[in-house]
């Protein structure tokens, strides 16, 4: 009897999974509609939404689940894009090789930097992540062999088992959707595994987790590496979409925008990060169509959202329901 009651309350996966499914189905439907209408631009916009959402999602996992606010996450995305670029220059353009390569390289970079950054907390941590991102930025900027500050066009779009799946806008959009789906469901699931439980506990109450016998440092290190790897995969797709890679992908403003997306969508809600990314891109696109001063509008929306406590979009939807 009591057991049953506890089970009902403790059904932790159902709600976020349902939200995740909704978000993904909506995006898939939009892609389908765009494809049916033959609107190539709309397809490529949706691909960009899915790619950006994946990056925001990996940051959301860090901020909302692990409590690690990174102000340099765009560097991870950018490094992934650079792996695609540089590997492409050496003839590696098949996703079977490229994706693991990007994941591992950037996860390693993330782990090394996190090992240092995790010695600090709070704003100090935020600034150290920024510092490492800036270092990555300046390193890429100085690589004139790969375009330096100007950036460089991708040799060719990536293939999968030799098939040019990313050649068409539809292919790219579907690949981005697939990555997003895998990342979203994976992350949602992860938060409920043993590992995720500890990660969340450490976020909220680190001394408790330590006293219970968990080496919090390692949990956070893995989370940071994992999020970096997923961001790198988003970077690979971004490079393929723009067919162009430049250090500006790693600019701190981009990192700031990713944080905006995550917080706007509700920091602790993983599907929220996807919604946050979509909302920001749609605002950007819609306002940018009307006025060159679109950032003024975006800024007002952000400020209003925070002040009116609508910062948590998913909570807003939740409130509307009640």
């Amino acid at each position: 009897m009591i057991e049953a009651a506890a089970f009902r309350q403790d059904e932790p996966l159902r709600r976020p999974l349902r939200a995740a499914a909704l978000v993904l189905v909506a995006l898939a439907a939009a892609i389908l509609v765009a494809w049916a209408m033959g609107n190539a631009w709309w397809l490529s916009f949706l691909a960009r939404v899915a790619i950006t959402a994946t990056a925001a999602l990996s940051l959301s996992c860090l901020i909302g689940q692990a409590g690690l606010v990174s102000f340099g996450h765009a560097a991870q995305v950018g490094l992934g894009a650079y792996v695609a670029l540089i590997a492409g220059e050496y003839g590696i353009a098949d996703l079977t090789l490229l994706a693991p390569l990007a994941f591992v390289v950037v996860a390693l970079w993330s782990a090394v930097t996190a090992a240092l950054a995790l010695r600090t907390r709070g704003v100090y941590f935020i600034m150290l992540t920024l510092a490492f991102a800036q270092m990555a930025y300046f390193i890429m900027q100085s690589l004139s062999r790969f375009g330096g500050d100007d950036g460089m066009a991708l040799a060719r779009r990536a293939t999968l088992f030799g098939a040019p799946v990313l050649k068409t806008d539809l292919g790219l959009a579907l690949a981005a959707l697939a990555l997003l789906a895998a990342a979203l469901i994976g992350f949602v699931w992860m938060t409920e595994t043993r590992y995720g439980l500890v990660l969340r506990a450490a976020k909220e109450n680190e001394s408790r987790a330590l006293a219970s016998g968990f080496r919090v440092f390692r949990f956070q290190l893995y989370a940071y590496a994992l999020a970096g790897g997923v961001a790198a995969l988003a970077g690979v797709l971004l490079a393929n979409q723009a067919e162009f890679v430049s250090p500006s992908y790693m600019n701190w403003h981009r990192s700031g925008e990713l944080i905006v997306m995550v917080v706007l969508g509700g920091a602790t809600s993983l599907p929220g990060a996807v919604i946050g990314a979509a909302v920001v891109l749609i605002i950007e696109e819609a306002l940018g169509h009307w006025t060159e001063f679109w950032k003024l509008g975006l800024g007002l929306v952000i400020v209003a959202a925070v002040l009116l406590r609508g910062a948590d979009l998913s909570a807003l939807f939740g409130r509307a329901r009640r």
Partner: protein
Amino acid sequence: MTSSFRRALLASAFVAPALFGAAAQADPVKIGFLSTLSGPSAPLGVHMRDGFLLAVKELGGKLGGQPTEVLVVDDELKPDVAVSKVKALIERDKVDLLAGVVFSNVMMAVAKPAAEAKTFLISGNAGPSPLAGKACSEYFFSASYQNDQNHEVMGKYAQDQGYKRVVLMTPNYQAGKDSMAGFKRHFKGEVLDEIFTPLGQLDFSAELAKIASAKPDAVFTFMPGGMGVNLVKQWSQAGLAGKIPFLSAFTVDETTLPATKEAADGLLSGAEWAPNIDTPENKAFVAAYEKEYGVAPSLYAAQGYDAARLIDGALKATGGKTSDKEALRKAIASAPFKSVRGAFKFNTNGFPVQDFYVVKAVKRGDGAYVTQTVSKVFSQAADAYAAECPLK
């Protein structure tokens, strides 16, 4: 989640394509104009855009006699953003032609998708070397110059002046390195030091001290936008103006002079245009621009203006049709317009063959600071990369 949430998502899925996909009518000639309109480099993009729009306005809102709609888009100086916006212009807005682009990194990113979509792209400023050489395209034309050329002008000028020892200073990015390479193409003296500064650097005190201690015969620099304003002001504050000749490209022009004013007085620059070039078209253009916008036009404005008039001429030749790509290409290649620069024709690689000058910042009678030609350095010059271009 919730039903209202679901409704919102569904709504966004259906409203959004309607919102973005609506403007697909094909009546007027549509031109997508890509420019940098935000951030510290915005003044360049604003001049280029204003020059273009001025020409369209003067032609009664018609290019080639066709009603024309210009869709101006801000590339934010981000190559990936530019790519997605260019794709939007091509695929969503179905533009007939693309024009604009201030910066080379943006140009390198957008030239490929434009060419793949078989959409002509008329550069209003950027002229990166790959597009002039190996990667030239039949869908790309430049109404400006090839990047190296204005730097070559100053190198040639330094050589002609007999300067033996110079210091070069540019931002640390590809265009900066190309700039130094361009300068050195005609300069045979000694380069004492090549200083690369971080892109976006504000304070040049460290570099100025270095330059002063090196005691060169002249300094050549390429500092576009706000960096140039800072450099020029600090150059004058450090008492270097008048002591060491200041040779530059894209550093002293009408976009920066309103901010530097007398600090730039007498500084030299390489350019293919200046407000005082004595052609009737140029006189009319400068007067109209100042009347319309209240400031003196820069070379970016002149290039934008020429780009619009080039398109106008080409569309006249095709009878306003843009569907026959080969005809349109031939029409553009014949440069059917009178450039404000005077003589102007296209090379095989789509870049202009034109004159280049050394220009100097001066105070005009009405108190405004403008550039003025000092001497012609190259006559009807082609760029160094045309030979590598496979197009005939």
